[in-house]
């Protein structure tokens, strides 16, 4: 009985308490000097230059650290522990309004196509940003298409994806509409907040051997706050994650400091507004990327400290947070360092980027 009691007592309450190691894998700086890693995804299939389990990371800044000008995607091979350049996109293209600045919005489909968001700027601030686009890249790193349109304006946060092979559904937060430069301020002296950010669902057909085609697009949530930021470029809804049952989309609403749920996200035909609040404040400090741990709990990175927070979405409760960037060169420690993260294929840990030191780290 005592043994059973001890075993029950030792059962973890959540995922993060099982994570103990934080291993810096390598630099994410590209050969052309691009900086500031944002998006990070794990390849679901072996196609082209990519092996299943590879980690793809994009850079938002160029080597002068200008935001909205990064054009590279790096590939980390866990078996060889080597980082290499996967794609170098053209800085300017008529097909993507304003050029290319790769954001946290990136996904790879099982068919090998990579879709990545671009929110370009010419001066490193939202003052000169353009609407941006979603770029389609083949598994050899070649861009093949750019999606634009009235619903695509500042594709920003990490995507949620439902992938059935020949069809797929993407969820992308759009945080660019009508956001002025950081010097347009409110009465308190902060950049003005524009409540026009949306979450867009994009339904895709994926013909054999051809790039995906947009079948339908639906704004399933809208009215989130978004604003310019001198250091972070902009702040808006950033993280998206699909519930394990595939029905509910969770989103991190950075300015309201909360996680919200969009019910029936794959099927709804109307906007859910800003959704249903799951949890707010507490350990959250400007939540950014969002993901689902193997136990079904949500994980989200804080923007203004170096913590990742675990949330039980069913109970609407925060469990705890773990410091995954404790660099006291920033105040609070890790402030501004975290952005994207992605679960490892074995479910025992996660990869994340530290954009202050431009590094890929594996926690497990």
């Amino acid at each position, binding site marked *: 009985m005592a043994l059973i009691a001890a075993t029950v007592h030792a059962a973890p309450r959540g995922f993060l308490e099982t994570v103990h190691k934080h291993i810096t894998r390598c630099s994410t700086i590209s050969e052309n000097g691009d900086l500031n890693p944002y998006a990070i995804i794990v390849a679901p299939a072996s196609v082209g230059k990519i092996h299943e389990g590879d980690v793809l990371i994009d850079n938002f800044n160029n080597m*002068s650290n200008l935001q909205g000008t990064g054009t590279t995607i790096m590939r980390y091979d866990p078996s060889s522990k080597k980082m290499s*350049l996967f794609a170098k996109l053209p800085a300017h293209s008529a*097909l993507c309004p304003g050029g290319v600045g790769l954001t946290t919005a990136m996904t790879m489909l099982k068919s090998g196509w990579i879709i990545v968001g671009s929110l370009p700027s010419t001066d490193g*601030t939202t003052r000169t940003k353009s609407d941006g686009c979603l770029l389609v890249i083949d598994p050899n790193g070649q861009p093949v*298409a750019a999606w634009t349109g009235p619903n695509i304006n500042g594709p920003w946060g990490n995507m949620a994806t439902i992938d059935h092979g020949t069809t797929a559904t993407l969820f992308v937060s759009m945080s660019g509409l009508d956001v002025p430069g950081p010097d347009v301020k409110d009465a308190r002296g902060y950049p003005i907040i524009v409540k026009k950010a949306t979450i867009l669902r994009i339904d895709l057909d994926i013909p054999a051997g051809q790039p995906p085609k947009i079948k339908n697009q639906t704004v399933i949530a809208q009215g989130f706050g978004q604003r310019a930021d001198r250091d972070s470029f902009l702040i808006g809804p950033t993280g998206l994650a699909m519930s394990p049952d595939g029905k509910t989309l969770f989103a991190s609403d950075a300015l309201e400091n909360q996680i919200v749920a969009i019910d029936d996200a794959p099927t709804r035909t109307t906007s859910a507004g800003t959704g249903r609040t799951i949890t707010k404040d507490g350990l959250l400090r400007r939540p950014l990327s969002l993901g689902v741990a193997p136990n079904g709990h949500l994980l989200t990175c804080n923007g203004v400290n170096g913590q990742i927070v675990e949330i039980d979405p069913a109970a609407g*409760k925060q469990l705890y947070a773990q410091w995954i*960037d404790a660099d006291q060169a920033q105040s609070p420690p890790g402030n501004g360092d975290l952005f994207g993260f992605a679960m490892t294929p074995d479910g025992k840990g996660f990869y994340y980027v530290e954009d202050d030191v431009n590094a890929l780290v594996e926690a497990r």
Partner: protein
Amino acid sequence: MALAIAASVRSFATPPPAPGLAETSSNPQEQGQNPAEAAPTGPFSNLSRTGFLLGDMFGLRPMLSKAGINFSLTETSEVLGNVTGGARQGFDYDGLTTATLTLDTQRAFDWNGGLFNISALQIHGRNLSADNLDTLQTASGIEADRSTRLWELWFQQKFFSQNQLDVKIGQQSLDQEFIVSQNAGYFVNTMFGWPMVPSADLPGGGPAYPLSDLGIRVRAKPTDSFTVLLGVFNGSPVANNSGDPQQVNPSGTSFPLNGGALVIGEIQYAYPALGSMVYAGESEPLARTYKLGFWFDSESFADYRIDSTGRLLADPASNGIARSHHGDYSLYAVADQMIWRSNDDADRTLNGFVRIMGTPQEDRNLVDLSLNAGLTLHDPLPHRDDDTFGIALGYAKVSSSASALDRDTGHFTDSNYPVRSGETFIEATYQYQLTPWCQIQPDLQYVFNPGGGIPDPRADHKIKDELVIGMRVNISF
């Protein structure tokens, strides 16, 4: 409102690559051929937000980056002046250009965990503290003799999966890693970098800016919270401990190994550490770092009061040769602590620091106790995330032996020779980020009892208290 919109986006989904995107190859070796790409990174472009004034340095930076090499060039220039007190009043300009080259061996040679570093200094302008102030705690951390000199030259190798151990070998400036207070680094006065005790007591002021020393440093992290630093270096950064050490080793390339040994060790505790947990509903501890350390130098140290025959040095009958002591040591503690965190603006934090260092060996040391303490407020004004306001003080206590020498001098010269005691200063500063490549920093210092109470060479009294004002500019090229 229903917002379902059917396929209204532009799509260029026809392989091979669409014309606009296919015009530029993804082959990085061909990227330089696209003139449109050079514009955002070129020198003097996007000056309001670029991190470097010269951008890609005419293509030099990306070329080096491919080989794992990073080159940085910075300039710190300042005008400081005393409007009251001092040996005289006036303003001086001084400046420092620092060039640093690092090579990541993983990228260069596929050798994991290695870092090579070389840096050089070009020091220009005048030295206000020497010209006007005659203070112990010099007004600016970049003040030094005019020169162009090698600063650091080392190789560092990390070991184990979480870098639990790393070893650095070569010419090192100890103020970069030892006795460091994170929050003190925002201030202009020298003593917020390399503190007063080693500056006054170690041969040549110790291996700190602009000097450095050959040696080896080991850093171990037995747990995520604790770090241990231990280093062994040549006992002096110069081969000859008489005269101005910067003139003795004017180019930084003499690499002396003829002295004794300087051993320095430090244990650090930090919260948060990687992996630290914070539980919902519990109050979250504020960030902090505590350090305890020591240094021991096995060189010979001259007594401040007694000569080699046992007479007082101030005695006219003295042979003038100070008694020699073997070795010197000091203990120190450093604390950095976040004090307050704003609920309204997460970037706004108030932090405090205290650093104290002392030595019981007063016979061979000019200063036996030094203290720095202060407060820093980050993001002090709305949406000024990268600005810092700080106020701090420094104190240096002249050793009883040096004070006794002054009393002895007064006795033997039958005069009211001033007896040194201690020197205190306060500093207020505001670091304003004009652009990511340029910071402007107005600064104010007030010094009480300059030099600990040394006589004014032009008058029959001690040097009067000094008000120092000035402006520093940091530029990243």
